[in-house]
């Protein structure tokens, strides 16, 4: 046979691929976790659940407080918190937001050569979630919308003292964080189903739209009210940061009487930005604490907050499901099914793409199903819990008390799912730092940096993923037990109440592991 060798320089090249439209931006090169490791992880999760439960069988002290170390009490900590450091950091964050939007509009539209998609999806969304969960609530410090609004506010006050910037509308109590949930669902849709998510100009338009909405919301209701109830990412990163080993707290309860968050209803003033900003320095603490203790809630979360946490958990899982062969089969079935056709054709008008229409439908169905499932398990928990004495807990209280204990599983799955993505796709930031607009600039001399796809080894990713998920599971089981003991004040009732929760957690953990054991299939 006559062969014509087509030899191409192989290796770890990032040659400018001819702009052939948008590539799948979120390309992941993960190998499926091997069956043995998957089964081992699942078995370990089940077995360790019983170990944790057994510890509680023998009686367990109610955990009321935890060790903490105020780093504002020592000079280096105070330097870290000084405005001389924080204000430039905020200025940089605002400048970066502007840069991303400008890059999206005027830069080259190849998603790998434009700063916008990598900055938004990799650095900010995945990276900030890692930082929030593992280190602390960085977003609260650098939120560019909050920072720019505060500057406007101060400028206005300087020009017209003794007046109030904004409309000062009251935030209705019933509204809670429903607006944030709505915006978060829209964001998740744009991440997972919207075909424009990797087209820089469309992404920039969405970022600009959200910025305008956020500034308007702050203007109408006040900065803190909007951040608490309307700014989806303050709420989302705030929930993740409850796992983190840092907290900010106000120690003087007399200050907290005035804030709109009703933060004292939770017992202590932790993570309330409004109180923290107006508290005198002596009443402020920035503490190191053990991981995960922030997820122990004294009071049940409100209904919209429960829905928000569940939406976060289910969207992370849905993201994983989207790359499984199961999803490929389901979407193919939906594409050709006569039954679904009218719905898909109708949605296609909005989303512009049949697959996006299908993903939209499935996302909504999945979010709703996840909420229903959680409430069913809460009803089960309520049904099996004996009521020793005092007022029995209602369904909403069960739901509000235990939802946060699921966060470690979701966080662990998030870490596992995005580990190699962050380390590989994140490298695109190096060439993009030199050439953010794709104009062949070479600002810091890194334009020709070649992405090293071998930077993480599959075995390392497998082990890290499975260990992270099993650890997340154990922490979740522990949190739920401690919460039950605190709320029910009775060993036997607490243990029994945890049987349905344990089943739900094992199911959620095994589902997470199962997704990691599936070969990645990207359909477009």
């Amino acid at each position, binding site marked *: 046979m006559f062969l014509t060798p087509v*030899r*191409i320089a*192989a290796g770890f090249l990032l040659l400018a691929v001819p702009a052939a439209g948008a590539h799948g931006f979120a390309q992941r*090169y993960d190998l499926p976790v091997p069956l043995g490791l998957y089964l081992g992880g699942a078995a370990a999760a089940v077995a360790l659940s019983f170990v944790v439960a057994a510890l509680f069988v023998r009686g367990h002290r109610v955990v009321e407080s935890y060790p903490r170390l105020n780093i504002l009490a020592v000079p280096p900590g105070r330097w870290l918190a000084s405005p001389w450091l924080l204000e430039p950091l905020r200025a940089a964050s605002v400048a970066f937001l502007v840069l991303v939007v400008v890059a999206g509009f005027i830069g080259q539209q190849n998603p790998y050569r434009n700063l916008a998609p990598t900055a938004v999806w990799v650095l900010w969304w995945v990276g900030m979630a890692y930082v929030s969960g593992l280190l602390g609530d960085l977003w609260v410090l650098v939120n560019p919308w909050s920072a720019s609004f505060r500057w406007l506010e101060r400028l206005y006050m300087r020009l017209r003292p003794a007046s109030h910037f904004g409309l000062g509308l009251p935030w209705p109590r019933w509204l809670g964080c429903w607006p944030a949930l709505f915006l978060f669902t829209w964001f998740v849709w744009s991440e997972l189903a919207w075909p424009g998510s990797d087209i820089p100009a469309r992404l920039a338009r969405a970022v600009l739209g959200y910025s305008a909405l956020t500034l308007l919301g702050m203007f109408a209701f006040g900065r803190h009210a909007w951040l608490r109830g309307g700014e989806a990412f303050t709420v989302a990163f705030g929930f993740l940061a409850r796992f983190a080993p840092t907290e900010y707290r106000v120690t003087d309860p007399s200050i907290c009487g005035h804030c709109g968050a009703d933060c004292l209803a939770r017992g202590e003033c932790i993570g309330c930005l409004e109180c923290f900003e107006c508290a005198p320095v002596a009443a402020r603490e920035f503490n190191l604490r053990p991981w995960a203790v922030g997820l122990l809630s004294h009071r049940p979360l409100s209904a919209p907050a429960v829905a928000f946490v569940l939406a976060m958990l289910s969207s992370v899982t849905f993201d994983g499901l989207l790359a499984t062969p199961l999803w490929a089969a389901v979407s193919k079935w939906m594409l050709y099914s006569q039954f679904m056709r009218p719905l898909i054709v109708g949605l296609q008008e909005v989303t512009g793409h049949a697959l996006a229409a299908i993903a939209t439908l499935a996302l909504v169905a999945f979010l709703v199903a996840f909420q229903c499932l959680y409430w069913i398990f809460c009803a089960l928990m309520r049904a099996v819990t004996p009521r020793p004495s005092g007022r029995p807990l209602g369904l909403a209280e069960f739901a509000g008390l235990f939802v946060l204990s699921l966060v470690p599983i979701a966080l662990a799955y998030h870490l596992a799912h995005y580990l190699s993505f962050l380390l590989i796709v994140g490298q695109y930031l190096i060439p993009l730092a030199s050439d953010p607009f794709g104009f062949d600039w070479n600002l810091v001399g890194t334009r020709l940096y070649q992405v090293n*796809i071998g930077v993480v080894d599959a075995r390392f990713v497998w082990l890290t993923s499975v260990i992270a998920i099993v650890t997340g599971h154990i922490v979740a089981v522990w949190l739920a037990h401690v919460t039950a003991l605190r709320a029910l004040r009775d060993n036997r009732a607490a243990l029994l109440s945890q049987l349905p929760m344990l089943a739900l957690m094992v199911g959620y953990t095994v589902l997470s592991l199962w997704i990691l054991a599936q*070969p990645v299939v990207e359909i477009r």
Partner: protein
Amino acid sequence: MRWMTTRVFPAICAALLLALSARAGEDRRFEIAIRDNQVPEAMQVVRVSRGDHVELVWTTDKPARLHFHGYDMEFQVAPGTPAVVDFDARATGRFPVELHGSSDNPHGHDTLLYVEVYPE
């Protein structure tokens, strides 16, 4: 502590040795025929180990432009002339080979097959 010296220590040494001296890879050769913008079922996942030298021999019934993601290689295949693409499997992972702009789906990126590189 005996198990430490008899089991763990040699294991660590072996792991280090493995990590330092990559396994002498094998030469692997796969013949892949594209018919009607698809490859046969058995060829939809090509499995190799890290360190292997891999040769993919492509034949096709229609002109095709392929993109091997991750390793980032783009190449054309024409009917009647087999095309040989070779590479050293240095990075582990699951990498799609996509058919760009077939006549049926001019702007699409249909995944033809996946190359899976496993840790040795």
